[in-house]
């Protein structure tokens, strides 16, 4: 169970945007939504991908699933390079890798009953199933996500948020995936439902051996569910390691600020030394040269604004600081 199911190598996703309305086609600027991220995910493992809104978490997830074309880099699924597969060639892989969308309604065509949604999902990759077998499978799926049978005849608009999320999860499970990219599966749900969804996801992981790429900005949940955590800042991974290392002994100033911003501050030692600087409006689309975090970094200020941080030639790279722990910073914090 330790084989690598997903490996992402130097993945880049750039969007182009015209500088002005009616600007000529060539006159575009590049928005680096995802800039050179690499990680791997083992079977049965959960990798938490955290970062503030707009840092490229969702774009990374969608690019891995080829819902958006990658600009550069490589995506390996079970060791096979799927980066450049055509849509048609890629379709068989889709049953192995699924996505839980952030939007509760995403999985659900508003005009379709839940039964039709689930039956369709079951039949997509196994069209040979008889209608009786499909019904049985739909029943199993409902049991898996703890939904009552009477929900089948309802329309999405008649379900609550938690129920919609469960249907969404049931739908992704219908194709028996090995990897699920969960894009903020708990957003827009209240806290008790969040806990139910997380418990459900963990139970399913134990039962079906799923791997999750868990995208979220809810750090407590990430801590709860993830084996490893990657912290993203403006399209780059700034720190990656085992959850306990990241949560308890962060080495990158951004990670520390993120974790110390948890409402329920745990101990003084994690929160005291670093106080968030001026978090003004930041232009996500045009990251600074060199270290992208420099303009907000308390260490950068404390060190007297060293040129190593702002010089594009010496931009910090991900470096190993401990076993399985990487940081993108010239001046990592003490462990």
């Amino acid at each position, binding site marked *: 169970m330790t084989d690598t199911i997903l490996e992402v190598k130097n993945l880049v996703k750039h969007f182009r945007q015209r500088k002005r309305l009616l600007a000529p086609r060539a006159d575009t600027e590049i928005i680096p939504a995802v800039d050179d991220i690499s990680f791997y995910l083992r079977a049965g493992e959960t990798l938490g991908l955290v970062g503030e809104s707009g840092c490229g978490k969702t774009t990374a997830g969608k690019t891995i699933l080829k819902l958006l074309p990658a600009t550069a880099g490589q995506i390996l699924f079970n060791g096979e390079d799927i980066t450049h597969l055509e*849509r048609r060639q890629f379709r068989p892989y*889709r049953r192995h890798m*699924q*996505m839980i969308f952030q939007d509760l*309604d*995403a999985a659900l065509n*508003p005009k379709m*009953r839940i039964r039709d949604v689930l039956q369709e999902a079951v039949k997509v*990759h196994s069209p040979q199933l008889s209608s009786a077998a499909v019904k049985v499978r739909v029943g199993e799926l409902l049991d898996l996500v703890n939904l009552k049978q009477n929900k089948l005849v309802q329309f999405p608009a008649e379900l609550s948020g938690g129920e919609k999320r469960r249907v969404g999860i049931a739908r992704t499970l219908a194709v028996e995936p090995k990897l699920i990219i969960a894009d903020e599966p708990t957003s827009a749900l209240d806290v008790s439902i969040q806990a139910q969804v997380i418990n459900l996801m963990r139970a399913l992981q134990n039962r079906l051996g799923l791997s999750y790429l868990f995208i979220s900005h809810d750090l407590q949940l990430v801590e709860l569910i993830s084996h490893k955590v990657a912290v993203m800042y403006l399209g780059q991974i700034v720190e990656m390691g085992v959850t306990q290392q990241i949560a308890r002994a962060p080495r990158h100033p951004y990670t520390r600020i993120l974790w110390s911003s948890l409402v329920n501050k745990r101990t003084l030692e994690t929160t005291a030394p670093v106080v968030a600087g001026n978090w003004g409006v930041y232009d996500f689309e045009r990251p600074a040269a060199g270290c992208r975090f420099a303009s907000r970094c308390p260490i950068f200020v404390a060190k007297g604004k060293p040129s190593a941080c702002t010089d594009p030639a010496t931009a910090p790279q991900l470096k190993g600081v401990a076993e399985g722990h990487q940081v993108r910073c010239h001046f990592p914090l003490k462990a």
Partner: protein
Amino acid sequence: MLFRQFQVEISESNQLSWWRTAGRKNKIYVIYGLAVVLAVLVSYGLGALHWLPHDPDDMNFDSLMAGPFTGGYLLGTDFMGRDLLTRLILGTQAYFLPGLMAIAIALVLGAVLGVSAGYRGGRVDTVVVYCNNLIDSFPRLILVLLVIAAFKPDIYYIMAVVGVTAAPLVASLVKGKVLFLRQKNFIESAIALGIPARVIIIKHILWYNCRALLLIQATLGMAEAILIETSLSYLGFGVQEPIPSWGNMVQAGANYLLQGNFWPSTAPALAILFTVLGFHLLGDGLNDILERQQ
């Protein structure tokens, strides 16, 4: 036990929920419209089976232009003593099948063009918009007359023109819908699930999300087809005597209006009025009921 019963009720109420939540006005519209559709269907069936109260060509010179309820004629007779009711019933033959054909052409062509314009965009989109503008700026009746002049005054030729000219409107409506739906996440999630593009287009976009729109366009298209057919028959380009159509009945009766015999012309005119009104109200009511669910 009470709980169980409650559950069953929920699931059953779903079946016709759109009707239950519809407003009173729209219900009346739809019921009236469906009654008109039924009447047209029955008339068409009766005509096709020749189950008619009188022979449509049987002339009774003893009662020319009789009023309603006289001498065994429920709606009276026309200027040649032929039974008006029989000829009205038979008149639906003139537009029923051709009208359906026009609708089929408009919907199929419109859906294909609309989906390709909305899904692919670019050049197809430009062409559809251009065609729509072109047809909008050209009187349809003139176009129909041109086709008649070029080929022959056949109702199917006329209806083909009606269908083709109605297609750009349907296309632009479908295009708008597709553009709206394409931004919805459920399309993206359908792709993520591995559903082929053609299934997404036909099933998710057209069937589940455009069927109401297409049904409404079909009812409005039928009204349009009837109006075009009657206008042409009135002008003498449509169905030719002695075959009855509502348009040529109005036209034939109109010659006697000044003599005070308004009925032979008014009866088919009222039939046109109530039928077209019925199709329009049906489309209107369905539009309010089905599209509001968005």
